[in-house]
């Protein structure tokens, strides 16, 4: 691709939309409603493969990892278009946007070149092993231990809330290589094959019915040294660079998803079920969140380094998502509470999942702590 980013994006949008229209039969999910998580994962892999082979999934990624270069806005638009047409579940799709940049920035170039195309093409699923039973919000206190041996790192410990671990082929794993007192300085990031001996995965049942995250047990797992991401003891930087991606392109996809659902609510709500003042306010919340997320996409495309300001995006997402589904729960109460058809099941599942929007990816309280310390410079909190 060449020319201005705006021109490239306009062309990409036009051509992609035409392709999505032409291939709509091949791309459509073979199930009604939300589907099971297995079905969603199969659908995701299928859509990614078709989009990769047609070239769309390679746009906006560097050539050295199988991409075709160009503005990152094309990636944002692809996710938006797939989500807005209900072709993929946005949370599952967005994992690529979080994990591929980490590999590109921190893995040995040969490793990145070998691994990233499989993620983009949907041949592989990756997961992110950060949280632990005793360290959720306080990431710097993590305890999962990696020790140097002649054969590589030997890893022992436990992770939790690891999204898609039961499907994953690889894991970006944060480990403790320094003393516990070394806090954020003694953390090292590793790229681990999930079929390594010593790894056990136990999916966790969730409130919304989709066991999308797991416990991960690591028992004398050997990880070769070339699988170290970044420097030994440099895992904190890897994590800090990854987290803003959780709050940028992923959220843009989510805005497209929420827009679709709010329109569907407008279509489905019976007369009198929606209060105009509340509907107006929720619409404004969603459009303002989208405006913020759009600006973030443009900053990223201009090469700006994303940082703590993305916490504002995350707070806005959580607020907008919960507001949209609170409206759903009231206006479509019969469907959400006692509807047993697939579409009602999807409304119910998505309402329940919206409760997690202020918890996952750094809770609302953690985001506000970040905003207070790093954006408002209010100093230490103790």
């Amino acid at each position, binding site marked *: 691709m060449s020319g201005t980013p705006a021109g490239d994006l306009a062309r990409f949008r036009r051509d992609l939309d035409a392709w999505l229209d032409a291939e709509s039969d091949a791309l459509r999910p073979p199930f009604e409603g939300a589907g099971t998580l297995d079905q969603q994962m199969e659908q995701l892999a299928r859509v990614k493969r078709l989009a990769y082979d047609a070239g769309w999934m390679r746009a906006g990624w560097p050539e050295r990892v199988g991409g075709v270069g160009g503005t990152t806005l094309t990636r944002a638009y692809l996710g938006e278009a797939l989500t807005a047409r209900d072709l993929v579940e946005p949370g599952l799709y967005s994992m690529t946007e979080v994990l591929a940049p980490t590999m590109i920035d921190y893995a040995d170039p040969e490793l990145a070149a070998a691994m990233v195309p499989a993620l983009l093409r949907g041949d592989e699923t990756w997961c992110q092993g950060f949280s632990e039973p005793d360290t959720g919000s306080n990431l710097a206190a993590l305890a999962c231990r990696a020790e140097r041996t002649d054969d590589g790192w030997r890893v022992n410990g436990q992770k939790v809330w690891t999204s898609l671990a039961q499907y994953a082929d690889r894991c970006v794993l944060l480990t403790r290589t320094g003393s516990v007192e070394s806090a954020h300085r003694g953390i090292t990031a590793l790229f681990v094959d999930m079929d390594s001996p010593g790894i056990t995965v136990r999916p966790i049942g969730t409130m919304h019915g989709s066991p999308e995250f797991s416990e991960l047990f690591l028992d004398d797992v050997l990880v070769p040294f070339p699988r170290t991401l970044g420097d030994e003891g440099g895992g904190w930087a890897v994590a800090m660079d990854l987290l803003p991606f959780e709050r940028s392109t992923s959220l843009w996809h989510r805005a497209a998803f929420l827009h679709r659902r709010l329109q569907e609510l407008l279509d489905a709500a019976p007369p009198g079920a929606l209060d105009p003042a509340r509907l107006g306010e929720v619409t404004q919340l969603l459009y303002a969140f*989208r405006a913020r997320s759009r600006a973030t996409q443009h900053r990223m495309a201009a090469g700006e380094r994303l940082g703590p300001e993305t916490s504002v995006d995350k707070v806005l997402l959580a607020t907008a998502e919960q507001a949209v589904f609170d409206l759903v729960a009231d206006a479509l109460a019969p469907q959400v509470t006692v509807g047993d058809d697939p579409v009602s099941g999807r409304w119910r599942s998505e309402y329940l999942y919206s409760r997690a929007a202020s918890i996952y990816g750094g809770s609302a309280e953690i985001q506000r702590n970040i905003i207070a310390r790093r954006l408002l410079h209010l100093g230490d*909190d103790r």
Partner: protein
Amino acid sequence: MDADELDLFGRSLRDAATRPGDVGPGGTLDGALEDLGWDDALEDDPRGAISVLFGVQGETGATSSALGRVLSSGLGLADPPGGWAATVLPPAGSATPPGVLDGDALRIDGLAFTGLTGLPSARIVAMAADGTTSAHAVATDSLAVEPVDGVDPGYGLLRVTGDVGAGHGADRLPSGAWDAAVGLACLAVARELVGCSRAMLDLACEHAKGRVQFARPIASFQAVRHRLAETLVAVDMAEAMLDAAWLDPTPAATSMAKAVAGRQARTAARHGQQVLAGIGFTVEHPFHRYVRRTLVLDALLGTSASRTTALGARLLEGRQLPPLLPL
């Protein structure tokens, strides 16, 4: 204007706004705007000129008659030299034209800024029973023009009322012209609200860092920090909405920008007031001025609450969300 010119413009305005004696209660930036050629800048680069001026007004609490000029510009009508305030605004809480045309009679109820005093005539946009709008030049001395004390006497508002003949020289306005002009004015007021909100946040942060209780700055207490964080989210959200509205200033987009800016400024006022506590309730601290300004700005051109309800009602009628600004 390029970034350097805008920056210089902003600094000159901020200097004028904060120079003692120039802009006190009832004082106005009108003279400074005249000197700086803001009028030309508005035609040249509406977004730059409006954002800089109304941002400074919001942050400093200064005032001017420029909102009338913005309305004129949105209507595509020229003003006489120095005629900043010529076009009369709707009354508080409303976005409908200040004039009602009934046959040959023109009934007027609206607001203007201090600059109107001294102008030979005011421009009144009026709506007839059939919904058509027209602009009328009305001799100022045929109108009742009273200073508004209200919640914010420092804002320099005048109440303009009258019952006059339609007279001659009325310009028939194209359909949609008034709404487009109000849309542009909404962007100006939204910018002022965002500036006002940022000023309240700054005052509250400054206080929280300096005020010590239980041997620590109150900024170290999570209850206080989260209020302030919440305020930044509110202000950034309003600003994002405003920036997006400038990219495609449809009536739906400008209305949402004004509504969100108004609601978020009320949020900033609520949190800021609580953090500033006792001192923020006194007239010895500047906070109360911004609280007053927030209320009057929210009411100008229709409150956030009324715009929000109207949006919801429109959505329920058409069952179609507003168009999305593309990536």
